């Protein structure tokens, strides 16, 4: 079986990194101008901690050494090289478009939390609970709009989803040209100062996991 880490434009630069279970990485040409970085594996298993981290490390290293990387979804185990080529057959246009989309960009994550105050009473009735949840959804939607406005000129794309569960309000991801990273962080800082009742946590730069599919929102 093959574990696929990412798809890259040919010729891919593969850093000297080992894959899952220290398996060596190798390159499979899937189309005339597309390559996959894979390692051999002993068949399907539950996604464990070590494997998840090893996968992430390889994708990260590839993203650092290549202009455009499309991370592969973790659980997709592939029988062999022919199986891989067959599965990607007919998707050249989609993949070429995705490479163009992420080229020169990194992904940044933003999560928003309601800053908890010890003095704030816990909702003591179902009605109070529902009201708080409604308030959270409204607050999250408002923040999503605020972020979109603040970042519009800086990012190539963005996607967000309202969580409103517990203290979590919003999870957003942005496709940011490398040159705009500093501006991006500054813009997030400005939004955070405008919303002192929230805590924003920015993560990244990540490889463009959330933008590897052309219709990321539909996936």
């Amino acid at each position: 079986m093959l574990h696929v880490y990412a798809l890259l434009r040919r010729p891919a630069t593969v850093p000297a990194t080992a894959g899952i279970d220290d398996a060596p990485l190798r390159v499979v040409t899937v189309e005339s101008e597309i390559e996959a970085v894979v390692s051999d594996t002993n068949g399907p298993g539950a996604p464990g901690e070590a494997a998840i981290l090893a996968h992430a490390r390889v994708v990260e290293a590839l993203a650092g050494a290549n202009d455009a990387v499309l991370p592969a979804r973790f659980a997709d185990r592939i029988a062999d090289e022919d199986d891989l080529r067959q599965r990607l057959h007919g998707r050249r246009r989609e993949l070429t478009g995705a490479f163009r989309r992420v080229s020169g960009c990194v992904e940044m994550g933003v999560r928003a939390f309601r800053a908890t105050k010890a003095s704030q009473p816990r909702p003591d009735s179902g009605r109070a609970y529902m009201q708080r949840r409604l308030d959270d959804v409204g607050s999250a939607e408002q923040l999503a709009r605020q972020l979109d406005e603040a970042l519009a000129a800086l990012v190539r794309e963005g996607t967000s989803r309202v969580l409103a569960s517990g203290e979590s309000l919003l999870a957003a991801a942005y496709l940011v040209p490398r040159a705009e990273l500093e501006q991006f962080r500054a813009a997030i800082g400005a939004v955070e100062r405008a919303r002192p009742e929230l805590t924003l946590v920015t993560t990244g730069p990540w490889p463009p996991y959330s933008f590897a599919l052309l219709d990321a929102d539909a996936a």
Partner: protein
Amino acid sequence: MSSASPALQQQVTLIELVDRVLNKGVTLTGDITLSVAGVDLVYVGLRLLLASVSTLERLDGESP
């Protein structure tokens, strides 16, 4: 300046990483049902969670 504590930053980074590796990326098999879109942390191994909790505790212990 972000007001997030290092412990929160670290925990969120872990959640974001696992969410990306398991739920995002190009699907090769076309089997979307394998993913757990929209559900955070479902797949996270217990050890991974425990690791983040112990990290949190350690960080808390280090802070003055």
